[in-house]
């Protein structure tokens, strides 16, 4: 069965979680198993990537769990979009484990850190692979539970407070999601996403409530992705969770929200047979209504995140706000894609979102791990207590510079291509709008201007982070500490990945482009699941 490989990453993560739990009496063994599992996970994802995308006959594959064929059982679907997200997760996960072993206090690692880590990874993996709406909810719960433990992991009052905020918002989100899923199931009679897409596209069936019901699910996804106005949990949760976990939050769990929006709206709801008419917008797809919502949410995120980051005193706080803003850069092209009049613009919008998401996962990981290195050496992440690290460790400064420049979007780093594609989508929308009415031109122009403002804010806070920590007078905290060379070496390899993704962009483009095409190719998706063709 060729489909079996689709479940491989799930199995690896599940086994990893269980084995590390069993091995907890032997810390060394546990760490080895943990790292080995992460590598095995990356290997399974690599196999999947090859099978689905890079093999000559690469195509989406599905695995029908328990032999119950779709739409009756639960189906896992590994298409280009899902494996793109998995690949991103796998890279961050490997580094996060290695970094955890080095960075987290040995005694703390023994407190179920590793099993929880792999269960978190399991939740993320399941969410990317599942082709079933309720099953998606289940993996969301797994992710939520595991992240909740990590936010409160250190157990002081500020961590507990952050965890309470996190859990309250997400439980409300879960309730909304459940309500939405229930409604969608009641309306379409199916939970299988491919089947649902077919039901929605059928003529003559009244599926109008779907547009409203899907909003409940959307809100939960936006909450997971930390988009404004659902970003409230982000800064405190990021400051509380262990730093390697924050990398997973940034690189994987937030991206689950983005993935779910793309998957549900573009693959499943995109072809729905429904007329949407509101002041200023009319069309024959739920995407018409999604477009202004995504654009608003994206613009708000860019502004809240960008402005919020500029004066934060702690590096982790600064990068937390930054990731709110950067997710705005992911969502705006999605909004452009949703509003797109043409297939090609739709695809370039999604492509932009995916490339930016990949860059953000890698670059922010570099920056958060760098923050970890700094904390490890100096015991603080406050810019007011830092300075002169560049003189202590030029190698670290080099890594941090790569991260900062990629965040700003300097070529040829990964961040440049993220920025390039996002601006490309916006520029194309503007070009398409210049022949349209004033409102369309105005909104396209406004989006371009917000993106420009967001990018300038990025320069402002990135330079501030750089000057406050790497430049400046050496503070006492820096003078007393030593930068861990092993951590810097590990980090340097990740910085190299950021460079390589940019310099060797051709295959990355090929991959992201395949993912973007998969996102809007409902037919291929349903065919892979096996409900296609009626």
């Amino acid at each position, binding site marked *: 069965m060729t489909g079996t490989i689709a479940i491989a990453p799930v199995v690896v993560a599940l086994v990893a979680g269980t084995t590390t739990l069993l091995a907890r009496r032997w810390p060394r063994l546990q760490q080895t198993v943990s790292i080995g599992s992460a590598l095995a996970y990356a290997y399974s994802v690599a196999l999947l990537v090859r099978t689905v995308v890079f093999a000559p006959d690469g195509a989406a594959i599905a695995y029908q769990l328990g032999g119950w064929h779709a739409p009756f059982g639960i189906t896992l679907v590994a298409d280009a979009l899902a494996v793109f997200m998995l690949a991103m997760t796998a890279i961050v996960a490997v580094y996060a484990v290695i970094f955890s072993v080095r960075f987290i206090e040995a005694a703390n690692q023994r407190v179920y850190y590793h099993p929880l880590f792999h269960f978190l990874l399991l939740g993320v993996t399941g969410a990317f692979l599942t082709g079933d709406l309720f099953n998606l909810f289940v993996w969301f719960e797994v992710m939520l539970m595991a992240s909740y433990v990590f936010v409160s992991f250190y157990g002081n009052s500020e961590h507990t407070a952050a965890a309470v905020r996190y859990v309250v918002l997400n439980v409300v*989100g879960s309730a909304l999601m459940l309500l939405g899923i229930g409604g969608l199931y009641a309306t379409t009679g199916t939970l299988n996403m491919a089947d649902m897409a077919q039901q929605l596209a059928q003529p003559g069936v009244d599926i109008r409530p779907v547009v*409203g019901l899907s909003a409940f699910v959307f809100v939960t996804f936006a909450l997971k992705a930390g988009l404004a106005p659902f970003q409230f949990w982000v800064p405190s949760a990021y400051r509380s969770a262990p730093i390697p976990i924050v990398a997973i939050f940034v690189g994987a769990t937030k991206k689950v929200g983005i993935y779910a929006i793309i998957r549900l709206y573009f693959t499943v709801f995109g072809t729905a047979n429904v007329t949407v*008419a509101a002041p200023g917008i009319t069309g024959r797809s739920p995407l018409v209504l999604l477009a202004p919502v995504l654009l608003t949410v994206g613009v708000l995120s860019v502004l809240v995140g960008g402005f919020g980051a500029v004066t934060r005193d702690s590096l982790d706080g600064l990068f937390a706000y930054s990731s709110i803003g950067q997710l705005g850069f992911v969502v705006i092209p999605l909004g452009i894609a949703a509003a797109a009049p043409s297939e090609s613009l739709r695809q370039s919008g999604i492509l932009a979102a995916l490339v930016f998401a990949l860059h953000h996962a890698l670059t922010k990981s570099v920056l958060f791990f760098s923050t970890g290195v700094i904390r490890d050496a100096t015991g603080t992440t406050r810019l007011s207590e830092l300075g002169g690290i560049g003189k202590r460790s030029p190698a670290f400064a080099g890594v941090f510079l790569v991260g900062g420049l990629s965040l*700003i979007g300097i070529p040829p780093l990964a961040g440049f291509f993220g920025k390039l594609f996002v601006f*490309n989508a916006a520029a194309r929308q503007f070009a398409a709008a210049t*022949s349209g009415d004033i409102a369309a031109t105005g909104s396209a122009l406004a989006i371009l201007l917000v993106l420009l403002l967001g990018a300038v804010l990025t320069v*402002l806070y990135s330079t501030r982070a750089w000057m406050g920590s790497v430049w400046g007078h050496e503070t006492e905290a820096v003078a007393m500490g030593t930068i861990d060379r092993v951590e810097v070496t590990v980090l340097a390899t990740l910085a190299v990945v950021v460079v390589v993704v940019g310099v060797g*962009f051709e295959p990355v483009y090929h991959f992201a482009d395949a993912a973007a095409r998969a996102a809007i190719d409902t037919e291929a998706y349903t065919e892979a699941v096996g409900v296609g063709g009626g």
Partner: protein
Amino acid sequence: MDLGFWPLAIAIGLPFVAAAGMPRLYPLVGERIGYLGAAVAAVSFGLLGTQIGTEGSVSRPWIPSLDVAVRLHADGLALLFALLASGIGILIFAYATSYMHGKPDLGRFYMALLAFMGSVLGVALAADLLLLFLFWELTSVCSFVLIGYHTEDAESQYSARMAMVITVGGGLCLLVGILFVAIAAETAGIGAFDLAAILERNDAVRVALEETGLFTPALVLLVIAAAAKSAQVPLYFWLPRAMVAPTPVSAFLHSATMVKVGVYALGRVRPLFHGTEWTSLVATLGIATMAVGALLAVLARDIKELLAYSTASHLGLMVAAFGFRSRYGAEAGVFHLLNHALFKAALFLVAGVIAHEAGTRHIDELGGLRHDLPVTAVITALATLSMAGIPPFSGFYSKEILFEATWETAQTGGGVAWLYPAAAVFASVFTVLYSLRFLWLFFGDRPDGLGSIHRAPGALVVPPAVLAGALLLVSVRPSAVIDLIVNDAARATAVGVVDIHAGIPRHVSGPVVMSVITVSAGFACFPFYTEIRGILEGVSTATARVHPTTVYRSTLGTVDRTSRLVRSRVQNGLIRTYVWWLLLSACALTAAGYASTAVGIPAPAMAETPVAVVLVLSVAVVAAIAVASAESHVTGVLTLGILGFMIAIFYILGSGADLALTQLVVETLLLLIFLLVLEEIPEFYGELKRGRALRDAALSVVVGTTAFVSVLLAAPERGADPTPTAVFYVTNAVPEGGGANVVNVILTDFRAFDTLGESIVVIIAALSVLVLLTMRDRGETQ
């Protein structure tokens, strides 16, 4: 000779390779590593020199899918700029080796300087829009690192960040402008980023730009980008601040090369954009900068500041020249690019010598230096007279062509176009003034406070002397240089035929009169320099509020205030606020979804609802209100229990026995757990404000209504057929699943994967209890 890929690629790549090796090499070689930099620059210079006279493009693929390639293009303009960068580079590295003696962090310094040189060569030779952007941004980054060379100095940091914000901000405009051009190129059927092809078929691209309505946006964006990079009004203010960098950096980046990148880019795209809009935007911008820069240079008190403003002014001259459509515009721009690079680099190096030997850069504290620095005095004389545009020095020739360009434009345009020559003369008078003032550092009286001055070491004097030699060559034999490269360069940017004539004019004409006025007014005003400066200071103080520096500072202040507002107002730490927004957004979006699809809201079938159900649910509603308004925790928990049990009864009435059982278990456990933890919870939370309570009540009604409407909409019609899935489950539960209870079979077989996930949730929940107990108050370290 044919154009080769490798000579160009090596010329660009070698500096980067050397830069990468610097941190390793520096500890081995020491300070003399600067000579290695000079050697690298010499190799690049030599390689480029072999290409003089060639023209064409070469390329190697980079990202074929995007049609992005390492496309390099050589023509007169590209080679002139690249030769200037590498040639001056040789001198700068040689100079720096002596100048930076004993300074810290030289490995990093030379690394950035080399990478910078490679980037400028890249900008000069790139024929791919993305490649051009890459090198463009790298020059900004190198500039940031070099301006911030004194990393501990707050002023260096401020200036470095300012330069980064302005130039990278300009870079963003360039990016969008490039994308607009690329879209048009695609429409015209040309490879999107292939600059050489775009320029070759500029008419087609231009038509496409105009048809898509992108002509003006692209033009404006590119001009903003160039203005940010090349310090045009009002974005010039970062340039004087960049002078905190060591002098070799100022001479190399901030006078001779990097700041010219913007001018160069304008020259490159000139054939694509030329026209009325182009002239009115670019020429006006340039002339304005020329005037403002010259005035500010007169105001300056520091020799490097004077030179910085003068640089802005001369960049304005080049921009203006490129702005004029006639052949004179192309000629003046290109020729001045060369002349300015030579005299300004020389003057910066001289400024370095002065600072090094006299220990001050303050203009009023310096004078009569010719006695102590005779050779430097000669160099300065050559360079300042060229800068002032005094015949027969090189600067005169290019400025005279600019005058011709303004004169011609005024004659053809008439009316306001006469402001061009007027403003050009006005700016040039001040250029003469500050040039003479700089010269006066050597020839004026020696102030009393000035201490003893050492003779400058040869290593510091030779580089500017070489530049002065080149200036002399251009001054005496302009035709030689013009024939060698300048004419070719002008042709690359010109719209028509070019034919540069440089020499002392023999007939009286408009431009000649302009020059006569400029020089004589400049000399006539010089005795009143202090008075003029006083007047300008008055004007400057009166307009302080609109100075770009002030605007920059206050904008950053506003950004910071907004940032704090985000922290205090948006992220206020109150769960109430957070949940409020979450629920409100969810309801609003759902309502929008229902409204936009015009779903009719079905009336609830009240008549068919059994009385028992109505009764039970009414009790539940009452209980819910009681929970919200409960005075104490105990009452709240108990009433919550009533609510839960009512729901269980509702399930029983709806024949969901298993659901009811689950609900009862959950409710009982909840009640017990709540009662156990109540002890630990504070009795009293504080006063609830009336307005807030009302707001929350309103929101809860909205949430309830939305959920209610959603359930009504989603509920299947009475008597509807079961779905295929339901039919499948019922039919297959016994034969395939082996269980008589369909729900059980769903949970353990059909959808067992869900159950697996939920079991993991339970495991994590158990682990979370253990983690919370173990880690309690442990913190990040033990």
